[in-house]
């Protein structure tokens, strides 16, 4: 199983998913992020899915769960870089990703977290 790295930049955790996600990798990411949030006191999480070709119901649910977990650590999650084809497919699948904020790209996501968007 491949692991998704988490970078801490200032008060923000930055996750860029560059692998073909298998379920175990997403679950591991969820655990790793919770550990990082608890350990660093970060106030924001940016998940960049620019390179992610599909988000199915499981991956989508896990992303939403990451948003809920972050909130318990006083952190906000912003999903950035969703591909148009992924957005269309997710909507048709019936997944709304309520509870997760989105931004067009990492820069805008960061601005959203810093309250300057």
């Amino acid at each position, binding site marked *: 199983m491949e692991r998704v790295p988490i970078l801490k930049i200032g008060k923000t955790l930055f996750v860029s998913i560059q692998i073909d996600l298998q379920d175990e990798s997403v679950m591991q990411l969820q655990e790793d992020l919770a550990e990082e949030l608890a350990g660093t006191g970060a106030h924001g999480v940016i998940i960049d899915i620019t390179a992610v070709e599909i988000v199915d119901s499981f991956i989508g649910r896990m992303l939403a769960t990451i948003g809920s977990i972050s909130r318990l650590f006083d952190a906000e999650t912003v999903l950035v870089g969703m*591909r148009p*084809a992924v957005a269309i497919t997710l909507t048709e*699948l019936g*997944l709304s990703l309520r509870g997760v904020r989105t931004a067009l790209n990492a820069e805008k996501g960061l601005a959203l977290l810093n309250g300057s968007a």
Partner: protein
Amino acid sequence: MEELPIRTGNDVVRVRQQVRAVAAESGLSLVDQTKLVTAASELARNALVHGGGGMARVDVVTSGAGKPGVRIGFTDDGPGIADVDQALTDGWTSGGGLGLGLSGARRLVDEFELNSKPGSGTSVVVVKWSR
């Protein structure tokens, strides 16, 4: 064409990659490729999680009108589905999930056929046609 085993989470990823490659080759649009790969991901996971593992078979097909398409067949030897209509209902889940896997996969493809009986496994065949 090619039979792919579904025994691990990594096999689910391999099925997605194979479907993506065949769909791109058959001239499906990027959105249609994404829809088909997403449906394949849901169905492969079902075969793994609920069927205890299975097989996927990806074929290039041609419609009566001469349009190319991609057909994927999934089979497993799991416990089968007692109530197929219920299993295809949005929000119905056998446990844990959102209940969007099967119903969502059906929405993402052009043709969807599910055969299952308790005790004799499940087979799902889906087709996505190029527009």
